[in-house]
């Protein structure tokens, strides 16, 4: 999996950065399972676009959508 595009969209008041990434392939369920080793994963698959979030407190927060049939 590779990052095709990275855009810094916001600098938050606490100094953290918010970036938006476009990946070259859909995120897979196995990748989300892998992420569970490092923090909390939420996966909502009953939405128009399946949504996921990954939270590692005081380190990183990721949220996005899984497109495609696999995930």
């Amino acid at each position, binding site marked *: 999996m590779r990052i095709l595009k990275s855009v810094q969209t916001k600098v938050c008041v606490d100094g953290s950065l918010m970036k938006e990434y476009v990946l070259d392939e859909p995120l897979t369920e196995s990748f989300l399972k892998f992420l569970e080793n490092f923090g909390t994963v939420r996966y*909502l698959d*009953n*939405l128009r676009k399946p949504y996921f979030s990954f939270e590692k407190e005081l380190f990183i927060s990721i949220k996005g959508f899984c497109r495609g049939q696999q995930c």
Partner: protein
Amino acid sequence: MEPGQLNEREGLIYLNNAATSWPKPPGVIAEVTKSLQDPYFEQGRTTASGAIDYPAAARETLARFFHAEKPGHIIFTQNATDSLNLLIHGFTRNTTAPFHTITTELEHNSVLRPLHALEMNGALSLTTVPFTNNHVSLAAIKAAIREDTRLVVMTHGSNVLGSVQDIKPVAEYLRTNDIFFIVDGAQTAGHIPIDLSCVPVDAFVFTGHKALFSIPGIGGFYLPDPTAIAVTKQGGTGSDSGSLRQPMEMPTRFESGTHNYPGIASLYAGVRFIEGVGLATIERKGRELTASFVQALKKTDTIIIHNKSPDLPIVSFSIDGIDNSEVGFILARAYQVITRTGLHCAPLIHRRIDGGRGCIRASFSWFTTMEECRVATGAIREVAESAHP
């Protein structure tokens, strides 16, 4: 122009009208274009003639719209925040001793921050009156009044709860007790009738870019008697230019520098659009959309609605078990439903209703359709039900 005809961004459902209305009526866009194409014309500032004197025309239009007796006492500013700062700081500068001020928990930071800054400087002491059932009562304000109370600043309509405050009895009571009363009408102007001929407020603040359909960057206030407010900005007014002293006539007393002509033109056209449709029609539609929206959300137990009977077309809610910013993100990216999440610049309301966590706000305009509300509530319920399968 019928609702639903202007949304050229296919599929986008814009429910953030309490922040800034979108789309704008075609007449507004046309008037802005015209204001930029024609040579600027304002008495005292050009030898051009024949074009519209937008500041004068907009003052007349706004005075008619608000039933304000003196068009020349409508002052243009950048927005409601600019108006409130000018009024609050101007009142404080004109009052020598530290004095007591009353405000409410329903206020936006445009009221809270200037008052807090003045409190920190020792210029005033501040009492913040709580709300009950989404409203601040006259009794609560009466209870907060002290011998040294000189100023009350209060919102007309809450930008989070959508509740309209009954300002008339408050204004009448404060007038008889010689307490200056500033009303923030940022959320009500354009949504509900406002008759300043029978409500004795000392200053009424409005902004253009919300329900009055103007472009951002133009607002103002109505100030029937300007003597209580010190002039805090001086400069060119196009009148009495030989004098180094700021003219004390209205409106130049508070309007230094060149006007925001396109903004004023858009405000002029926005109010005329509302008059054309009919404010009663707009208000009725807002109530129908809001009732329908609330009714749909009530079907899902995990959706917490913070005011189930708002007076304004504003519905604030949270979804149990999922962060507000995540909900906003999902609605925008997966469903093209635009809302606003967070504290809405009204921290004291959120401390009361959600422990300061904030919420999601959906807000409608004349251009919002019932079908858009149906799709949006369906999306919100889908998110809520997905979070609690």
